[in-house]
């Protein structure tokens, strides 16, 4: 047992501080996505775990609901119309004095009718004369609301806001945009490692240089090529195959480099032995190299997949903003503009876009880290 020292306590506290600071923003987003949108707009998410006091306005029923008992006319209903679980503790009948009465007390309207409101929202409205108005009167209540969480926001964004479709679109972009580079780069990396040909070293140096070339350097010419291509063949310049190839291009250098880094660690005797036995490069690749590279493929797959899934820029440039093509990140950015104050939409939308990355993160963290650490060597 280590002894408890000042340093160790301090270390723990400092680390705890970092952990809390890092988790709180995401946690707040997640909690908010589960809250009722009206409550979300007026109170901080950290209040959602405790019973909150809220002021609300309800309207009583009108004349249609009245019954006559003895000499009096009554309207006996519930302000909440069932459903909600709130506990009223004060109420009022004018906007100037919204918490004038204790619950259970009887309040007097200007027209001399009397109303009593109870804790659970039941009220009894009593009048000597018949109720004439179709519309009821406003009742101001102060209620305690226990913590409630709902999945309504998720239904709303997935179905009504079109995030469900955007989710599918992103998947349709990300899967091929990860698999295609993996396929063509594995052959490429094999050739760079085990085949002898003129210009191999220059090609390798080109890959290393391309690793750090900013995406922005490529956007305008590639977009021009796409537009020309589209015009020439009478197809849209913005399409799924188009963005797959764009992502393939922009991810090619890093995928190749990571694979090359891995392949050169394989024992060369093994490859050469296979070659001496008369196996072609293709056989060697499929039967020896690929099975050995599965863990490395997994790491690279995750890195590229997350990169594509989280990308915004390439999606903005190479896909339409039409609902059938728009990707999650672009949709989210659009919502930030158009629904900037609707936090229930934004928080839920953001969380939907994070589900797949977070799932991959928690289930395949080992491969993710391995890929990052391997990639870090490239600088």
């Amino acid at each position: 047992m280590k002894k408890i020292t000042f340093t160790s306590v301090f270390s723990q506290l400092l680390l705890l501080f970092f952990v809390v600071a890092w988790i709180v923003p995401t946690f707040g987003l997640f909690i908010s996505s589960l809250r009722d949108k009206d409550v979300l707009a007026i109170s901080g998410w950290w209040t959602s775990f405790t019973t909150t006091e809220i002021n609300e306005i309800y309207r009583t029923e009108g004349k249609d609901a009245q019954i006559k008992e003895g000499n009096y006319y009554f309207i006996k209903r519930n302000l909440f119309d069932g459903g909600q679980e709130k506990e009223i503790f004060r109420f009022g009948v004018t906007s100037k004095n919204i918490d004038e009465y204790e619950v259970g007390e009887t309040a007097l309207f200007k027209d001399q009718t009397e109303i009593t409101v109870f804790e659970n929202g039941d009220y009894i409205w009593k009048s000597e004369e018949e109720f004439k108005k179709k519309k009821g009167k406003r009742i101001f209540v102060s209620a305690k609301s226990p913590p409630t969480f709902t999945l309504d926001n998720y239904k709303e964004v997935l179905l009504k806001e079109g995030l469900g479709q955007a989710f599918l679109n992103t998947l349709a972009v990300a899967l091929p945009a990860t698999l295609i580079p993996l396929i063509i780069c594995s052959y490429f990396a094999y050739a760079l490692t085990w085949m002898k040909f003129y210009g191999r070293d220059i090609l390798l140096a080109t890959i290393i240089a391309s690793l750090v070339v900013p995406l922005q350097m490529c956007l305008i010419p590639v977009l021009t090529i796409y537009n020309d291509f589209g015009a020439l063949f009478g197809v849209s310049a913005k399409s799924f195959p188009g963005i797959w190839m764009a992502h393939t291009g922009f991810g090619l250098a890093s995928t190749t480099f990571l694979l090359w880094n891995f392949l050169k660690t394989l024992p060369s005797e093994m490859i050469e032995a296979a070659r001496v036995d008369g196996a072609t490069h293709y056989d060697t690749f499929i039967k020896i190299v690929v099975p050995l590279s599965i863990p490395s493929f997994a790491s690279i797959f995750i890195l590229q997949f997350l990169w594509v899934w989280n990308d915004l820029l390439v999606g903005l440039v190479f896909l339409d903003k039409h609902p059938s093509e728009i990707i999650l990140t672009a949709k989210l950015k659009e919502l930030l503009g158009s629904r900037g104050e609707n936090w229930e939409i934004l928080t839920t939308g953001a969380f939907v876009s994070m589900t797949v990355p977070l799932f991959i993160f928690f289930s395949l963290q080992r491969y993710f880290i391995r890929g990052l650490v391997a990639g870090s060597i490239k600088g």
Partner: protein
Amino acid sequence: MSIFSLAITVLIGVLFFVAFFHFSNFLLDYFRVRASKKFALENSIRVIIFIAPAFIVLFVFILYPVFETIRLSFYDKIGENFVGLYNYSWAIKDPDFKRSIINNLGWLIVVPTISTFFGLVIANLADRVWWGSIAKSIIFMPMAISFVGAGVIWKFMYDYRGPGDQQIGLLNAIAVALGFEPQAWLTIPIWNNLFLMAIMIWIQTGLALVIFSAALRSIPNETLDAARIDGASELKIFWSIIVPFLEQTILVIWTIITILVLKVFDIIYAMTNGQWQTEVLANLMYDWMFRGGGDSGRGSVLAFCILIGVTPILAWNLYRHKQDQKV
């Protein structure tokens, strides 16, 4: 599109490439049996099959565009008429450009420094407590989140309501609880840049953390124990043994984050779109790609500026690669 048609499109797209490699190699093997003497020819055809798809993609999407962008920077907005250095002189006079350069420099100084420092400190702390791996996971988690998602998370943190209203953004709620006035953090020029940088730091600290964690394991325990027996404080050990030992790693992480920061686009685009003096090169470049029907000349100049920023790293990488090859 329905799930079904999306799935079909995806499948065809992927299978196309699998089929290409399979059938081209199959054909080659087939003809080899017929003309087995031409071994050299077979080999070079095989090389071509292996590298051609990747090379074509590399050429179309990286090599050609880089030179084309440089060329376009000397042409007018539609890329047809040569205008010499006009776009460059426009850039120098443009206030947005000046703002972008200053902001990018700020990002370059602040983000890699703090992320690397935090990563190093947390990696050290996490190594000595039993719940270290959970802590690492949590701090690493933002790495999996998109910049736009992170943007929403932090925009919510920075949310502003007028004084007197209930604050729903955590930062303002804390400010109010401490007796300060609530602030619209993202609209306060100069300072708002720091609030945007915080997002990037929040994300990239995790990267630094995992790489440092891996590297820390390579420090021999004997060295650390020896220092402790000699009575060195933990702080002293950190600065005098760990930091010098990880010098290479620090440099590597620094460069990765630097490259990323030079290209920073999503965060700015989603949070402020360059308003309130938060403009950066990548966002300005995107803006000019489409503003007024698009100006490829100005856009190219801005992209070129980002390339110039990464050039030292590019040269250094090539140099290191050359050194490695010699060994």
